[in-house]
């Protein structure tokens, strides 16, 4: 049995750990801390927006700081670390039959870089001049702003270094440390998705690094990259920023959809539909195209006239590999035997939420349509469907799915299902109405107040109520996890009956070194084979 159960909790062991599973748990704790704080900001903002005029604060600068922290913490502190920090770290060695990652100490380093990033982000609430430049940090405002732009830049840089270290580590692990018999075409879809996400991080993180360093140089050392009066241009930043930050959407989406694939295959007890088409067409198609999508963010800012129609087309093209990923998921249901335990409910929710999120991205690719929806509530409505609630559905469903593996305990199904139902209802009210206000009324985003749009006040109010339902869901979910941790029944070794390596070859929770003996896989072994 696990050696872990015999020992109590020792802080030193956690601080100096290099075990990929413990590093993963540290990432999980960090990302849920960020999620909690950014969620509090969201609730404050939604409450402020429930009526025209001051509701809970009469200072727009306070609101702007909430919004800055919400965006930066949700993306850099929660989504990317939860998916490429926690899940990737935890699953990849277990799924490929490795004892640990290739560079365990680099793995610990990448967590502590991330930790330092979280600490810097939290300084927002301590310093007298909190950043108010939104997570995009557009100059020249970020240069002129009285807020502390350096905090923003260094937070981004630390998270970026952490991602690069993690990416090199995990990619090396998959390339070099697969168990004998684990050929490329037997890798779990999640492992492929993680590889895709890390290839994107390695390719594109340097760009955002450069962008925020240029901000520092402009603001604190008097350089003029973005100062038009001295021959610079603010538009350079917007291009470099989105050249990273649009691919970052796929850094989040790929592992998220990878988790949904794992959950769907396990609970449908079925093989993944068109595995090779999904991997080489869907996942690597997204990776290949993600570098030509950034321009649609700049249709009404900076695109030269001749480039816009080309960008329109290349942006629309991303629908092709994403469509293949969706077809692979739905095909996995076909002839399946689907059991609706809590993780599968979340996966089912994902099918619909991601359908809405994906399809509402299509108008964003059309430059003429963009002339209206750019910078309106349509945009946060759309990307919350994709990044916030589809990806969060994957994260929460994924935590329920991994829970018995991670803790050796089983959660309460009723609480799990109740949390999902509340989350699904709340999310659709909140973000459905958000999109509608943007499209129908042109309600602009990042507004502390909206005196010029009195007609949306009632909708804003209902949206706020929707967000309280999400809050209620979050409480139910947190209670269900705490309850399971404290009073949960002991779980079976493989409660879902999965055929994937992490469940069949390793005890729950796995000890350091993961597997009792070296893993060797037969020629006819497959992680999704339920015929035998």
């Amino acid at each position, binding site marked *: 049995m696990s050696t872990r159960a015999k020992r109590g909790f020792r802080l030193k062991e956690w601080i100096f750990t290099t075990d990929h599973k413990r590093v993963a748990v540290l990432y999980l704790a960090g990302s849920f801390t960020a999620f909690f704080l950014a969620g509090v900001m969201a609730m404050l903002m939604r409450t402020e927006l429930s009526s025209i005029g001051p509701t809970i604060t009469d200072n*727009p600068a306070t609101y*702007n700081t909430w919004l800055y922290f919400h965006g930066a913490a949700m993306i850099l502190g929660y989504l990317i670390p939860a998916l490429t920090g926690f899940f990737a770290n935890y699953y990849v060695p277990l799924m490929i039959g490795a004892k640990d990652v290739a560079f365990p100490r680099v793995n610990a380093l990448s967590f502590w870089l991330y930790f330092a990033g979280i600490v810097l982000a939290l300084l927002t609430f301590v310093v007298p001049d909190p950043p108010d430049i939104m997570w995009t940090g557009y*100059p*020249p*405002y970020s240069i*002129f*702003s009285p807020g502390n732009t350096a905090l923003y830049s260094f937070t981004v840089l630390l998270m970026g270094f952490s991602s690069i270290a993690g990416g090199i580590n995990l990619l090396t692990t998959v390339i070099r440390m697969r168990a004998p018999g684990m050929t490329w075409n037997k890798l779990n879809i999640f492992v492929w998705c993680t590889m895709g996400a890390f290839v994107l991080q390695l390719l594109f993180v340097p760009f955002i690094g450069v962008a925020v360093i240029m901000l520092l140089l402009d603001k604190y050392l008097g350089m003029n990259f973005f100062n*038009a*009066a001295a021959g610079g*241009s*603010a538009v350079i930043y917007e291009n470099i920023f989105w050249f990273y930050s649009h691919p970052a959407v796929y850094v989040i989406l790929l592992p998220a959809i990878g988790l949904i694939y794992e959950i769907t295959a396990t609970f449908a*007890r*079925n*093989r993944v*539909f*068109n595995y090779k*088409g999904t991997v080489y*067409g869907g996942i690597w198609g997204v990776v290949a195209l993600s570098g030509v999508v950034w321009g649609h963010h700049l249709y*009404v*800012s*900076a695109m030269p006239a001749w480039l*816009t*129609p080309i960008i*329109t*087309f290349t942006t*629309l093209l991303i*629908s*092709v590999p994403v*469509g*293949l990923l969706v*077809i692979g998921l*739905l*095909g996995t*249901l*076909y*002839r*399946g*035997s689907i*059991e609706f335990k809590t993780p599968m409910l979340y996966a089912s929710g994902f099918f*619909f939420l991601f*359908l809405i999120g994906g*399809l*509402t991205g*299509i*108008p964003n*690719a*059309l*430059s*003429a*349509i963009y*002339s*209206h929806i*750019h*910078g*309106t509530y349509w945009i946060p409505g759309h990307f919350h469907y994709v990044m916030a609630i589809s990806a969060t559905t994957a994260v929460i469903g994924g935590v329920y799915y991994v829970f018995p593996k991670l803790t050796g305990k089983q959660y309460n199904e009723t609480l799990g299902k109740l949390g999902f139902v509340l989350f699904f209802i709340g999310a659709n009210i909140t973000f459905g109405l958000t999109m509608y206000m943007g499209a129908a009324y042109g309600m*602009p985003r990042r507004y502390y107040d*909206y*005196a*010029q749009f009195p007609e949306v006040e009632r909708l804003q109010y209902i949206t706020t109520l929707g967000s309280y339902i999400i809050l209620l869901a979050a409480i139910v979910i947190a209670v269900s996890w705490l309850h399971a941790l404290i009073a949960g029944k002991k779980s079976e070794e493989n409660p879902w009956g999965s055929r994937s390596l992490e469940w069949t070859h390793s005890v729950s929770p796995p000890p350091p070194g993961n597997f009792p003996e070296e893993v060797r896989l037969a020629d006819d072994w497959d992680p999704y084979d339920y*015929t035998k």
Partner: protein
Amino acid sequence: MANGLNRPVLWTTAIVLSAASRAEARSPDITAGWHELWREVIWDISIIGALFAAITLYLLVRYRRSRAQKNGTGNPLTPLAAIGWVLIPVFVFLADDIFLAAKNYDLWNQYRAVPENAYVVDVEAGMWSWDFRHPDGFIETNELRVAVGRPVHIRLTSRDVVHSFFIPDYKVKWDAVPGKTNYLWFNPVEPGEHVVTCTEFCGTLHSSMFGKVIVMPQAEFDTWLEAKRREKI
């Protein structure tokens, strides 16, 4: 005889042609064009969405676990089927993408081609207000008066940070970037008042950076313009 038959045909052609050229001379209504494209896109994604949602729902219900069957029975695809399940969806999605991109291309060109007879207004954005400079040189702040029926050409710049000039009712928007002069145009076809507001985050009072476009009947506008001119002298 042939001449007799041809004459009416020629006349009709001439009338149709001149009507067409007159329609061409009149500036296109890009706002109506936006609504039309929007309707088409929403239909497009709603049909795809409804189709996929129905298939998903069907699959979830039809293949739920039963006592009789514990394991899924999905078969591996043959190489041909696997390629087909990639190429056919790729073809369908690509076709839709090309269709939408082409539709967008037409409307986008209208958005970017300012009609020749347009009334030119220079707009300078600043934290946190809009200055509108009329061709005669006088400046209005946070209010722009224009005459109905004549397209308005906005030349846009900023004196401090990036702002974005947005008239929701006309479906037009462009960023005001320091050091650059961008442009957009709109066609005020009816008298009325419309909000103009900032949609690029520009600091503490970003949400208070709004004004209005007041579209006046030609005669009223002329009177107002004349009064302004005299004021200036």
